[in-house]
């Protein structure tokens, strides 16, 4: 049996930055000769969570919420101001070299590859950097080149790749050394739908078939919908939500919609428990609260009064759910 000690353990984690006010503006004033006033930014302000091996977790939050800072703490780029943080049994910032040998990280807008080198040569270099055994290297390379469809641009210098190609190459590069844990920071940013889908399929494959634990930050909530069973939401340095995607929707999903195509045009086909938000000929859209009336109840009520030809229940999309959480601060 697999033992289930968490691979990531975080408690009361804090990262504060001291923001120095720019002194340029009033350079002549005497005040600048006194010690600088410093504002403290609590980028990460006491968060706690743990992640079990094999989980695929989406990490969400608006810009400046503390997402990137958390990822930088988890990958050892930053030292925490306070709290506990251990990943895979390491203190990431202290045991940097040993620790990073077992993780992979892709930061969407940056590449780890050598700009002027053909993709394949970057991989070869990584083999030496990570001391990857030839066997492992060949197996991974063969698997990934196929899954990520790298063959068409293996000999192209990295600087000439499209964004989508570069992302695929970077993903491959981050995984050649069989990391236990993969950090992805905005992996689909700037990609078209097809490219996004390919990246998502690959992430799923890694998680399902290789058991790689994946932590993913993204702006694109369809990434989260398609990939993650668990989401964490951070804002103002605090963890607002940590749980399943479905319960997030249940709790905060707001109103559902029922779209009905009637067999004939009715004037204001009102019904108890729902309100009409739109009427276009025979098509009427209702909105209703999930905790007031169920969809089936509503349909029964409607069909006893009107002749229905077709209907559809629409769940609020995750994007508006999350936006509501940020805007209305539902979780505080």
């Amino acid at each position, binding site marked *: 049996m697999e033992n289930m000690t968490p691979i990531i353990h975080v408690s009361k984690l804090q990262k504060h930055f001291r923001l120095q006010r720019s002194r340029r503006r009033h350079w002549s004033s005497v005040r600048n000769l006194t010690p600088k006033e410093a504002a403290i930014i609590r980028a990460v302000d006491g968060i706690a969570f743990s992640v079990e091996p094999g989980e695929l977790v989406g990490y969400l939050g608006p810009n400046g919420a503390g997402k990137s800072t958390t990822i930088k703490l988890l990958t050892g780029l930053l030292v925490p101001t306070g709290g506990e943080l251990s990943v895979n049994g390491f203190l990431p910032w202290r045991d940097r070299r040993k620790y990073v040998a077992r993780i992979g990280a892709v930061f969407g807008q940056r590449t780890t590859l050598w700009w002027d080198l053909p993709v394949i040569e970057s991989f070869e270099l990584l083999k*030496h950097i990570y001391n990857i055994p030839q066997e492992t290297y060949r197996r991974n390379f063969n698997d990934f080149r196929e899954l990520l469809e790298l063959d068409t641009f293996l000999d192209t210098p990295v600087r000439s790749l499209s964004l989508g190609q570069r992302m695929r190459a970077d993903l491959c590069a981050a995984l050649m050394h069989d990391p236990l844990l993969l950090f992805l920071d905005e992996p689909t940013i700037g990609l078209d739908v097809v490219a996004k889908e390919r990246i998502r399929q690959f992430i799923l494959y890694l998680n399902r078939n290789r058991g790689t634990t994946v932590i993913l930050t993204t702006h694109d909530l369809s990434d989260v919908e398609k990939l993650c069973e668990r989401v964490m939401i951070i804002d103002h340095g605090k963890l607002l939500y940590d749980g399943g995607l479905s319960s997030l929707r249940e709790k905060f999903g707001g109103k559902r919609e029922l779209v009905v195509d009637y067999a004939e045009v009715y004037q204001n086909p009102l019904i108890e428990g729902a309100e009409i938000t739109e009427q276009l000929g025979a098509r009427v859209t209702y909105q209703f609260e999930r905790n007031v009336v169920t969809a089936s109840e509503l349909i029964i009520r409607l069909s006893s009064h009107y002749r229905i030809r077709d209907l559809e229940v629409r769940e609020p999309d995750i994007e508006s759910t999350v936006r509501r959480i940020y805007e209305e601060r539902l979780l505080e």
Partner: protein
Amino acid sequence: MIKSLLLYFRLISIQIRSQLHYRFPFLLDLIATGFITLLGFLSLVFVFQRFGHIRGWTLAEVAFLYGLVDSAFGLMDMVFSGFDPQAFGRKVRFGQFDQMMLKPVNLTLQVFSSEFILRRLGRILEGTTIFIISIGLLDMTWTFGKLVYLPVVYFSTVAFFGGLFIIGATVTFWTIESIEVVNIFTYGGTEMMSYPMHIYQDFLRRFFTYIIPAIFINYYPALYFLDKPDPFNMPEYAYLLSPIVGFGILSIALAFWRVGIRHYQSTGT
């Protein structure tokens, strides 16, 4: 250790290969670099045509100093390319340094192998040529001690400039952008050290004796090589301080560099 060195040479050879990929532009670059530095020297030649000597030093004697410094600076500029404060500041800003931190390899080694600007060869060649010509013109008495000490002085000069580069790169952890002050020491320092120190005003000379002891790097060794008297009455062993100062500055720079990395880990960008 051996593994690290192998990795270093592997990364460097890739740099070199990609720079040689376009042979013709590379050659032009090389010639241009050599030519620009040569122009600096030619202006010196014209000054000598007019005055014959500067404060008791002939053209050949100054050329000895000038060539040595230029060649050593060129070599440093090539080997320490990764630490060039301007380029390094960019690496920090654009997250390339973060990428290095994500690799299980010593950071200093990664910065060293992140860049290797081969066209600096132009300056090395120019400096070395001036140096060799100066030796041809000078009627030097070579002793065994001088022969042994010459490469020591050369590499101490490289280490000294390398230390300044590393200090300049480290400062960018705090300032994000590289600051001009650093250039005063690196480029200004080279310029100063290309000429005999006794031509400068006292305060400048004292600065380069007691604050940044550049005077021991090449001026005192030059007095020794050229059998010239010491105008400042330093102890007799002053000419032997070159490696101590050169490698001392480099060690201090590396210590500061480690402090800089620790600072970076606590603040990020």
